[in-house]
């Protein structure tokens, strides 16, 4: 079940068609599998290896380098509390401490109902909005202890519908109709693109 399902396989083939070399699609496909399963499983990595034509070990090699790929379960809502320098200066450690108390778990653990996990993360590019956090990569700016608790309550009661379950990144995908596609620039093609040839440009 953790191989890509039919719909995701269709999306995967579309993504693959955009790159001159298949392995370039590896990270996007890992995201796709994480979106489907909430994490990256061994079976998914084997499936992706087939699709991009490398060994499963190579897929694991890439996967294990990147922070966002979770090879173990996390909460339905993964809360990433920024502890970069700007957030540190404005109380990130207090937010982390509060999260631990409020959720009743330590960094990296999952609450008993499976809903929440949290960790301190490096700068997430919202420095003027410190201290900030992301829930499943959706921003919450200038967060106070009370706001943190309200956020958790809303997510628990299903009152916050903006945030998708862990794994889903962008809710909109790039979609290229085949007649509009210029097509990938094949690595073996040895001639300059047509608009340069016509202009007799040599640069």
């Amino acid at each position, binding site marked *: 079940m953790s191989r890509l399902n039919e719909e995701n396989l269709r999306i995967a083939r579309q993504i693959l068609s955009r790159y001159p070399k298949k392995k370039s699609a590896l990270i996007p496909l890992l995201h796709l599998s994480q979106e489907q399963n909430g994490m990256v499983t061994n079976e998914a990595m084997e499936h992706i290896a087939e699709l991009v034509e490398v060994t499963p070990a190579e897929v694991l*090699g890439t996967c294990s380098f*990147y922070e966002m*790929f979770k090879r173990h379960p996390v909460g339905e809502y993964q809360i990433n509390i920024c502890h970069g320098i700007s957030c540190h200066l404005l109380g990130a450690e207090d937010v982390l401490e509060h999260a631990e108390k409020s959720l009743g778990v330590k960094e990296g653990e999952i609450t008993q109902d499976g809903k929440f996990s949290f960790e301190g993360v490096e700068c997430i590019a919202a420095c003027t909005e*410190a201290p900030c956090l992301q829930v499943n990569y959706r921003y919450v700016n200038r967060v106070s202890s009370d706001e943190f608790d309200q956020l958790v309550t809303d997510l628990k009661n299903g009152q916050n519908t903006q945030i998708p379950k862990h794994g889903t990144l962008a809710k909109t995908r790039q979609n290229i109709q085949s007649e509009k596609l210029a*097509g990938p*620039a094949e690595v073996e093609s040895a001639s300059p693109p047509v608009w340069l040839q016509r202009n007799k*440009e040599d*640069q």
Partner: protein
Amino acid sequence: MSIPLITTSRWNIEDGHTLEGYLRTGGYQGLRRALEMTPAQVHEEVKKASLLGRGGAGFPAGIKWGFLPPDVWPRYLVVNGDESEPGTYKDRLLIERDPHQLIEGCVITCFALGLSQCFLYVRGEMAHGQERIASALNEAYEHGYVGRNILGTELSVDVVLHWGAGAYIVGEETALIESLEGNRGMPRLKPPYFPASIGLYGKPTIVNNVETLSNIPWIVEHGGDAFAKIGAEQSTGTRIFAVSGHVRNPGVFEVEFGTTTFRDLIMGDQYAGGIRDGNTIKAFIPGGASAPWFFEEHLDTPLEKTTVDNEGSMLGSGAVVVMDETTDIVKACHNVVRFFSRESCGKCTPCREGTNWLEKILDRILNGYGRPEDIDLLLDVCDNISPGISWPPKQTTICPLGPSAVSPIASALKRYRSEFDAYITSNTDTPVTVNGGPA
């Protein structure tokens, strides 16, 4: 002096991110203008503009473009949207609020240099940014601004949205290429110094930052000379700075490049509005976590590349982080060093081992187990990563990440050594075991 807003003009327009809003506010005029010119003419305008790269190194974009070897095809464009330098917050806003401007910049660049395909690498954590740019790309394809036969001409280029998965090091351009090839994001051995000669799939590749490319439509529409008239002689145009930390009004501001000073930016009412609570300034980081820190006496330094370089730091990625008198310098220093330690990719020994030990020694000092000799030990490890601890830093590593961890330590010790000493002398316990082994 009043200056035109070049890159942030649509940030306050509610539908500025849609094709309709973009076209209504003069969008895709640069592309139309470019298509009336020859590719070489477009390149010439960018050279005239003296546009410095906005990613961190500040290398002139027009010159970087000129490094492409003749007659090697295909060539690629890779957009560096992996904004992760602590304190840096501008590319995400450019992506979210004006994605078409970036797309237009990409297409013009491909036209000018004969680049056959563009990969737009957006940081993985920026879900909303990816949505905005995906929508914008879908609209742009639909209406013929990207893809096959752009605006009915022979220009055919795809802009492919690619996204990362959480790794600071991927902002280094050769690591970005590795990541785009589906590998672990580790920087490549130099030379070649520029992917323009050997880059993606071993082919000539231009890697430009989001902000750099967002300037291109304006430059082509108004001309390189008009751009070069704004700002200082060698730091032309405008530049976006994010001011964060202990200021009254933290924010992201587009200012005239090279003439505005740090004092204007940090203290000016139209910008960050001064230090919070009437406090005094203790230190500030002028260009992202990698940059050596500045102090009060540097406030009148202009935001100009060469001047800041000569004063011993860098404008880097346009991230100004302000620390007031209440800041615990040792903790702040530890915070920045921890960042580099965690983000080291592990390829080069001095960085992998060195940053890790720097973090552990600082940890020990903060936890009350510091030894008097620890200060010298810190400096010794720094010297092993970056011999001489000078500026610009010497490297024993492939990329500048390792030496970046030296910056906060050298800065903090230079000015506030007494705070380190205070932690060490307040320590009354002698630890039984040696602290600092693997957790």
